[in-house]
């Protein structure tokens, strides 16, 4: 049986991201109240481990259209962006970060910020925003 292992490499940016996540988790190791850094670190490690598994390609989440070569995996609020070279069985991790898990909240944020050029570029027509407040407090 041929052992097909995936080599995972990190860009300098991704390495800095990972080290930052690890440092935050290590500094907060005694914290009983804020578990978020530790969880973020644990999830980042879990995703990086999963990238080494050649049988987990089905977990790759591509971006849309011209960006479809860029892939992502997420666990909770931890996101890892990477590219995959199937010929050399290499994964290049581009960026690790935290983000919102509520995608509709994210859309609402973009629409209300008025910076809708991202949506326009993707062919999504954002709804018009009324400039007058229609909420009446009782």
């Amino acid at each position: 049986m041929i052992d097909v292992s995936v080599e995972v490499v990190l860009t300098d940016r991704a390495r800095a991201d990972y080290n930052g996540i690890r440092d935050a988790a290590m500094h907060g190791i005694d914290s009983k109240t804020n578990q978020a850094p530790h969880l973020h670190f644990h999830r980042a490690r879990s995703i990086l481990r999963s990238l080494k598994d050649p049988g987990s390609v089905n977990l790759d989440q591509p971006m849309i259209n011209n960006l479809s070569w860029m892939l992502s995996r997420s666990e909770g609020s931890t996101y890892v962006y990477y590219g995959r070279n199937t010929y050399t069985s290499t994964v290049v991790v581009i960026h690790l970060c935290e983000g919102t898990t509520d995608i509709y909240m994210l859309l609402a944020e973009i629409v209300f910020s008025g910076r809708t050029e991202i949506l326009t570029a993707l062919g999504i027509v954002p709804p018009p925003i009324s400039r007058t407040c229609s909420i009446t407090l009782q």
Partner: protein
Amino acid sequence: MAMDVDVRGSLLFYIDPTVEHVGVSKVRQLNASNLGKLKKMMVIQDNNTPLAVLLNYEQYLAMQGKLKEALETIHMLRSAPGVVEGLRDLKAGKLTPLEEVDPTLK
């Protein structure tokens, strides 16, 4: 690379061949056998009023996948500075094996 060109919004005479407008009576003819063979998306109408849309399971999953791709792309673009920096490193060959970054992930 093949590029999709969306002409639906710009051509007034465009007829989408993947959509079929049918009457309610068509729904009564559907069974397990022909539901599995649906090729087109059906817009079910009554007196020219659209009432419902019927599409096969794979088509629905494809639509859901595209929506997820779009939303994930928006998410990625929100963290664009980090992604752009990572891409610059990739172009410059600034790469380190995972095992060197963290030997415990061997």
